């Protein structure tokens, strides 16, 4: 269309200079531009369908019953033009009305029965299909739960979301109605072909001369349509990725006045998306209209050839009318088939992506017969542990240490030294590459993963609060945690003061990611979370980094009183936090370079002592004599 003027009215004028901005901006700086287009595997359509069948299998009886209903439905529908033919030939043309009531009655009956059976078939099919989907959704969710943490670091949340929502939905269309209607259409088409050939094979052949054209044209447009749809799909994914990241990071975008740059990026993707869609509209309209036209042309052909046949007395007028009616019914399924086929294609593509996810066997390996959890308290040993996130970039080298039962061990060291990584290994978020981690002498890989992890309580460096109440955020919706434990823990870490401030008290809403709490308060809440879970081992990764010294001291007291028997591993940059630990390990570039108590390490005069010096530079000025012992 040449009316492109309409397009320029788009958007508001205040940003008229945006096109200028476009040209200068180098590629690949856009938010979300590192979104990698997903490579589709080379799974065969057939394999995917077979695998989908596994989910349909439990409901196969219903499914087969529905399939059996299909010929009945088609039969009842195809009966109608035939009855019309009988009415015309046997009653109307001869002018003989007696007995036509029966034909009309049959016609009405066919309508009603068809409606009833159709309803039944639809309902049953939905039931089977939705059941299968419930199973699929559940399996997907459970499967994802079993992936290791590393998997989530490589896979954007948005993409997983798309797998578990959009793709499942597109399967839904195919499973619960698509396949069956397609089968229904095919049965209908075959029925028509057979009936027409039977009624008058000559006229039938003439009517079907258009079929090759029809098939060629459909194939032609379908090819372009598929291309357009593929483009739409990738664009929509990028659009989504950009939006998602923009919304989460909008504050940063605004603080760095990047709103316009980002909006331009978004507009560009949006434009590509729109244009791909316009293309698909064009092909779709042509396909639709041409199929429709071919239908009418066939009617022309029937009139041209059929009338001659009627005139020659080879067929009756009723047959001709019936032919026209059948042909009208013939092209609707053909047109729908093209659409259904597209739907099926995209369902298969979705299926492929879902199965790729289900095929991801990345997993924290588990043993078949897990060892029973050891007696508490735990003695934990790291024996010559090596670990790398990416090949060859060793993050931990030969880490070797031991935590006696009830001991408090602290990890200090430069940022990026690998402290959090040690926790990742201890929690089995990742498994060691070399060496082993033992609990009371048993390799932790021998235990049941869930049972093993549930003996820990961790406050991770990145605090996560979810949208819900304060209570839910502490108990993690575990009903077995009683009020008293909750209150005691809250009191110990001063969350109770926070709760008292709120009108809703414990039911006060925490916003997504804890947006309405201060950073320190978030840490307190997750500290409370750790305490109420009454762990065997307490792990604190910079758990008090955003908390003031006063509160921190109180937290330490709380840990001391509530978890005095437990083994604990603490990471902190603020040395005051860990000075009282039973043992301090100093990590540098993935290696433990010093170990001992605070006193021993100061005496040693190494790395730790330097850190300590720096931290207390001020304190040594004002209280020299006390420190310098």
């Amino acid at each position, binding site marked *: 269309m040449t009316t492109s003027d309409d397009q320029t009215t788009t958007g508001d004028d205040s940003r008229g200079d945006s096109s200028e901005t476009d040209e200068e901006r180098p590629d690949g700086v856009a938010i979300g531009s590192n979104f990698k287009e997903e490579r589709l595997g080379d799974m065969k359509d057939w394999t995917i369908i077979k695998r989908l069948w596994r989910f349909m299998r439990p409901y196969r009886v219903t499914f087969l019953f529905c399939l059996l209903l299909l010929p009945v439905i088609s039969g009842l529908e195809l009966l109608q033009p035939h009855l019309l033919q009988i009415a015309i030939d046997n009653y109307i043309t001869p002018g003989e009305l007696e007995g036509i009531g029966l*034909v009309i009655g049959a016609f009405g009956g066919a309508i009603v029965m068809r409606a009833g059976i159709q309803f039944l078939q639809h309902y049953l099919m*939905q039931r089977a299909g939705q059941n299968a989907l419930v199973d699929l959704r*559940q399996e997907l969710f459970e499967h994802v739960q079993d992936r290791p943490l590393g998997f989530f670091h490589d896979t954007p949340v948005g993409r997983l979301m798309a797998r578990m929502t959009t793709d499942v939905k597109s399967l839904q269309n195919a499973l619960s109605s698509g396949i069956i209607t397609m089968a229904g259409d095919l049965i209908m088409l075959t029925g028509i072909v057979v009936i027409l050939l039977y009624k008058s094979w000559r006229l039938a052949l003439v009517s079907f001369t258009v079929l090759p054209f029809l098939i060629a044209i459909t194939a032609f447009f379908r090819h372009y349509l598929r291309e357009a749809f593929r483009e739409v799909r990738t664009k929509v994914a990028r659009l989504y990725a950009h939006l998602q990241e923009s919304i989460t990071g909008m504050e940063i975008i605004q603080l760095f*006045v*990047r709103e316009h740059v980002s909006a331009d990026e978004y507009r560009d993707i949006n434009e590509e998306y729109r244009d791909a869609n316009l293309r698909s509209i064009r092909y*779709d309209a042509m396909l639709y209209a041409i199929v429709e036209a071919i239908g009418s042309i066939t009617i022309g052909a029937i009139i041209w050839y059929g009338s001659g046949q009627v005139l020659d007395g080879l067929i009756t007028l009723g047959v001709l009318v019936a032919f026209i009616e059948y042909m009208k019914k013939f092209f609707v399924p053909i047109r729908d088939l093209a659409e259904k086929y597209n739907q099926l294609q995209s369902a298969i593509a979705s299926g492929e992506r879902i199965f790729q996810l289900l095929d991801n066997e990345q997993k924290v390996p588990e043993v078949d017969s897990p060892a029973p959890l050891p007696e508490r308290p735990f003695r934990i040993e790291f024996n010559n542990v090596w670990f790398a*996130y990416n090949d060859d970039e060793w993050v931990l080298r030969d880490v070797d240490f031991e935590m006696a039962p009830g001991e408090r061990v602290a990890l200090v060291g430069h940022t990026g030294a690998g402290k959090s990584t040690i926790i990742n290994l201890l929690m089995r978020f990742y498994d060691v590459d070399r060496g082993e981690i033992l609990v009371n002498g048993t390799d932790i890989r021998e235990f049941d993963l869930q049972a093993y*992890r549930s003996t820990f309580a961790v406050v991770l460096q990145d605090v996560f609060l979810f949208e819900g109440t304060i209570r839910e955020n502490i108990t993690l919706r575990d009903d077995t945690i009683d009020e008293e434990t909750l209150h005691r823990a809250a009191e110990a870490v001063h969350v109770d003061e926070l709760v008292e401030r709120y009108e809703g008290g414990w039911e006060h809403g925490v916003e997504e990611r804890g947006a309405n709490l201060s*950073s320190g308060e978030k840490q307190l809440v997750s500290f409370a979370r750790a305490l109420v879970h009454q762990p065997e081992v307490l792990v604190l990764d910079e758990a008090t980094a955003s908390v003031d010294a006063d509160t921190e001291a109180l937290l330490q007291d709380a840990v001391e009183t509530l978890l005095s028997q437990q083994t604990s591993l603490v990471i902190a940059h603020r040395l005051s936090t860990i000075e*009282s630990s039973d043992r301090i390990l100093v990590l540098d570039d993935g290696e433990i370079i010093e170990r001992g108590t605070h006193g021993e390490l100061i005496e040693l005069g190494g790395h730790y002592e330097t850190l300590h010096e720096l931290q207390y530079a001020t304190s040594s000025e004002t209280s020299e004599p006390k420190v310098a012992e």
Partner: protein
Amino acid sequence: MTHDDSSDEGPLSLDVPLEERRRKMRSYFWRYKWWFLLGAVFLVLTNLQKFTIPVYIGYAVELMQQAAEGESELELLRANLVWAAIAVVLLAIGGAIARILSRITIFNPGRYIEFDIRNELYEKLADLTPAFYDPAPTGDLTSRVTNDVKSVRVFYALTYLHVINTAVAYAIGIWRMAQVDLQLTLMCLLPYPFLLGGILWLGQALFYQTKVVQSQLSEISTKIQENLSGVSMVKAYAIQDREIDLFSDLNEEFFEEKMHYAVLQGGLQALVGIVAAVGTFILLVVGSSQVVGGELSLGAFVEFNGYVVALAFPTISMGWIFSIWHRGRAAFDRIVEILAREPEIEDPDPEDQLDLPPLESGRSLGRVEMDDVTFGYDDETILENIDLEIPAGSTVAFVGKTGSGKSTLVELLTRLYDPDEGEVRIDGTPIERLPVRQLRSELGFVPQEPLLFSMTVRQNIRFGLDALDYDDTVERQAPTTPLIQPGPDAPRELSQEERIEQAVDVAGLRPDIDSFSDGLETIVGERGVTLSGGQKQRVTLARALLVDPRILILDDALSSVDTQTEQVILDHLDYIMRDRTSIILTHRFNALDRVDCIYVLDEGRIVQTGTHDELIEAGGVYEEMYRRQELEEDLDT
């Protein structure tokens, strides 16, 4: 009926008058009115074609019957029949062209509207502040920009297509039928109002059930989203079994609702089959005796049948209209709730607008004053009567207990929030009188919780430069000043590449970058998950330093950085920020002896001010906190 469609209660709900919403909705339609109008014309043409074909079919039947009765000459008849066939073919071709054009002219503007609304939403979102974002669930926002915009597009394109098409089809159809036989027309149309009523009723029921199904589905998505973004917590506390149970419950509920939906949908499908055939049925009942009685010719009978069948689809399509219509309006209302929102923070009126004195080297800038500032996020007061003056070029620190309001205080400087009372001035200019973006382009903010984008480290570091480089509405040019004290004959102006390298050094990121095999081109993962806590913080620091800010705000920005690295960073800052103001919020005391002034905050008030030594001398909150840290240390050694 209009009122219960407006969106449900929620953090995003906003009361926009119905009139306003509808006006806005019409405005998009008017924007593309020529497309739509053209579409209507083509729809008329398609329908004319559709309702002309039966004429020729009827005509052909007529001719053949005449032949049977031997009334006319056979040769002429044959010729006429061929003409009838050719007419049908020509009609088919013309119809195809009209049909293609009608779809394009109606579906295209739908896409244009979708494009426009998406862009407008994005631009609006870019104007809204945390007061809007914090309570807004991310999933809800993204769903409005994606799903709701889609519903609105479908609304414009499909309602228009179907409503016009049905109206035109009925008009032309009835006109044609009446020409054949008025009485028969009335008889045949008799069941249509009832069927239409049934279809509309089912359509409505389907719509409400769809709403239920949708909300169930969105609960499922919310659950998945929460589970995925909190995955480390789920794993650490081994609560995945509980999560699976919760999910399973939602999944089952969804199934139940979906089955209710299936009943209605099945009903509609059954009804569709009835509509498609009922016309022929009535025609048989009434028409056959008329033909036999000689009141109606067989040709007219067949022609008539063509009309009633052609009316079936337009009737059926009304079944979808109800859902599309209502879903579209509800979706539009949700979109308007964003579009109609006034940003809480706005630029001053042009006549009130002031500028900041320009940055020059050698001149100290970045004086911050707060006059009697009071602020609360909601009813509760968080900051009370804050009065302070930070001299240009100085370095100050804020300390205080968790939740005392430190972060809140510095956020007032960035105008992420505006104070409820009082005034904030920078270099003498009240910040409300500065254009917001100009103000922000002068600030370097390192937030307490580091947030990175899933780009490369380099792109994250240069994040703030993009606007200065590419956005003409930002006056400030990208700075070229070095970040590390240049030697006597080193250039005073550097390329951005060089500055990025220096920023890496200043933020102490060099060893980390060296340890990555992709160096600066390492992609950091969503929110920066593949970096260590301290690495993330230092990338955000480098990002802020690179824009050469007038005021640098470090909100506890080195909490995950070890002391040694911290010292190095602070030393560099002394040079970079020599003529500028630095504001440091911290819980660590080791950096405090190098700052010019410390403000102690307690429950939203400044309770003490002074240098480290003065505050120790004076005794009070600060001295207590300090002693406690020291005391702990004493106990150990």
